[in-house]
């Protein structure tokens, strides 16, 4: 059974201009001990999907549909009253599910010592003394590779560099041995050499703790190096999912193909021409119920602007939502 199971999730935001459908009918499962990468451009709904799962939506956001279960336990917002939901989620957040954010400086409280911030989740979710909690915090800091943790735990966030702060956030996420860790662009704010350190740490931790990790990112290089499975999001929908190898070596959706042909691979000896995707991503405000990629797609057919494509499965792991994969399209029948 999947560790985290999201079924038909839709999230929308009420704004002055109308309703923004940020997440549209998203279903995805995360198995125990795997790293799932969610890839998409800004505004594709990748972060909002996970914010919905964590129950961290902005006040104008609402879940219009969908079921979410973690380790068999139902945490769908619409199945509970607001009060019940908040209570359930405060038990789960930080304990069974934890999140690593993009910008470590805004996440840490600048006026509290690392110690205070790091033992908070431990004390909240476990029945242990403060002294034991501090010991555990020091152990966590050592595990994420912070040198001399006994001294450094007494310091404030500004005394740490960007990479070290991100390690502290990771330590905080690990504090209660969560079943699912959601990492939202964990290395985007870091330099490449520090990014390599942090990715290395995440890959090593995965072997140690056997939590499931969800990596939200726009960087295909990052996904290729550490993810087992990848979901590509576009216009609030998951357009293709598959193992890393299936996505990179056998992409099916025109958007996935487009993404792969517009990035430069430094390993190539010959200079390869980049093929950008024309146009720009769709506006999710009052978006129509048809394929979101239709306006930028080279192979768009009439049907693409009429209805939402159905899911086509190529293997147990690989599936894609595109009318081109429909049996009728293959016969050259463009209707």
């Amino acid at each position, binding site marked *: 059974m999947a560790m985290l199971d999201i079924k038909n999730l839709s999230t929308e935001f009420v704004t002055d201009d109308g309703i923004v459908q940020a997440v549209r009918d998203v279903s995805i499962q995360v198995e125990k001990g795997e790293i799932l990468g969610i890839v998409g*451009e*800004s505004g594709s709904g990748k972060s909002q999907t996970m914010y919905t799962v964590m129950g961290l939506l902005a006040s104008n956001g609402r879940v219009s549909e969908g079921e979410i279960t973690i380790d068999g336990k139902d945490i769908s917002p619409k199945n509970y009253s607001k009060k019940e939901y908040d209570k359930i989620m405060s038990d789960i957040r930080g304990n069974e599910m934890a999140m690593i954010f993009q910008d470590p400086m805004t996440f840490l409280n600048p006026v509290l010592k690392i110690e205070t911030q790091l033992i908070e989740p431990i004390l909240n979710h476990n029945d242990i003394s403060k002294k034991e909690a501090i010991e555990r915090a020091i152990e966590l800091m050592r595990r994420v590779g912070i040198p001399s943790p006994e001294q450094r735990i007494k310091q404030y966030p500004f005394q740490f*560099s960007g*990479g*070290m702060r991100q390690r502290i956030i990771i330590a905080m996420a690990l504090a209660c041995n969560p079943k699912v860790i959601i990492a939202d662009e964990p290395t985007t704010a870091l*330099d*490449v*050499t*520090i*990014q*390599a*350190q942090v*990715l*290395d740490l995440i890959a090593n931790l995965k072997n140690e703790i056997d939590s499931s990790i969800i990596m939200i990112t*726009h*960087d*295909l*290089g*990052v996904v*290729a*190096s550490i993810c087992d499975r990848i979901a590509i999001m576009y216009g609030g929908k998951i357009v293709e999912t598959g193992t*890393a*190898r299936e996505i*990179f070596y056998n992409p099916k959706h025109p958007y996935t193909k*487009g*993404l*792969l042909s*517009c*990035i*430069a*691979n*430094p*390993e190539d*000896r010959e*200079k*390869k*021409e*980049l*093929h*950008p*995707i*024309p146009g*720009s*991503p769709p506006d999710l405000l009052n978006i129509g119920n048809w394929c979101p990629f239709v306006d930028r797609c080279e192979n768009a057919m009439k049907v693409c602007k009429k209805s939402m494509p159905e899911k086509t499965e190529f293997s147990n792991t690989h599936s894609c939502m595109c009318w081109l994969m429909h049996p009728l399209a293959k016969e050259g029948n463009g209707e």
Partner: protein
Amino acid sequence: MAEPILKLDGLKVYFNIGGGFRRKKDIVKAVDGISLEIFPGETFGLVGESGCGKSTTGRAIVKIYEPTDGKIYVSGKDITKIKGSELKQFKQDVQMIFQDPYASLNPRMTVGEIIKEPMDIHKIYQTEKEKEARVRELLELVGLKPDHIRRYPHEFSGGQRQRIGIARTLALNPKLVVCDEPISALDVSIQAQVINLLEKIQAEMGISYLFIAHDLSMVKHISDRIGVMYLGNLVEIGDSDDLYHNPLHPYTEALLSSVPIPDPDVAKSKERIILQGELPSPIDPPSGCVFRTRCPKAMEKCSQCKPELKKVKDRMVACFLYDE
């Protein structure tokens, strides 16, 4: 060989920080003596981590910052002390594309006014009609519609705004364009659009680029030669393909090995050199070679004196490992 369009000779840019009543003043050595040459029609990529001085170098070249020491030659003429009409000519020849397409366009001017402004200042066209014709031509060149001329920047997406910025840069037919992280604020699918546009313009107009970025895969894609900076110093310069596949300086080697490769089989089998520790502070850089505190191959000599950028095969490297 042709005369370089840009030549830096021992460029230093220092900033004073702190100070005040009875307080010690500190000096940040943002750029500490770098020399390089860029030839006509060439793209020179400048890479390095944040704080290595790559943007400061770019800004010193377009005279946003005053160099502390060293010379900047544009078409053979030192521009560090120029004034008046010479300065005006220099500003026509050297232009800049900025990182943030939201902050670098005036929201209260129309696209036409933005692109026309440099033409007005430099009086390169006589009549309004000529100017407008040129603006329309430029809009078309960068892939926008000529009737966008009366619109305001907020009506455009990030990628389109960057195109407007590029059109403004080209208004004066520059010889050298300093591109300071021109694509890092854009989405992946839009980045390739802008890179292809820059390449197309170069092919048509024969201008040179100084391309500053931290995204090494894109720098390698667009550049003919690459310079690697670390803590205000150039540690290696070489042909981009050659440098990537056979880095000589230990820092270049580590930096390139940390680049994530968008290919799962290669990425998982690739040997990564994980650098220990973090970038030292540019206020108090290490003695001798600045990289020695993180260098896996550091020797005793490295802490005593600073290695010079020297020719090794057809490469320039600043490292004692390559001394005879």
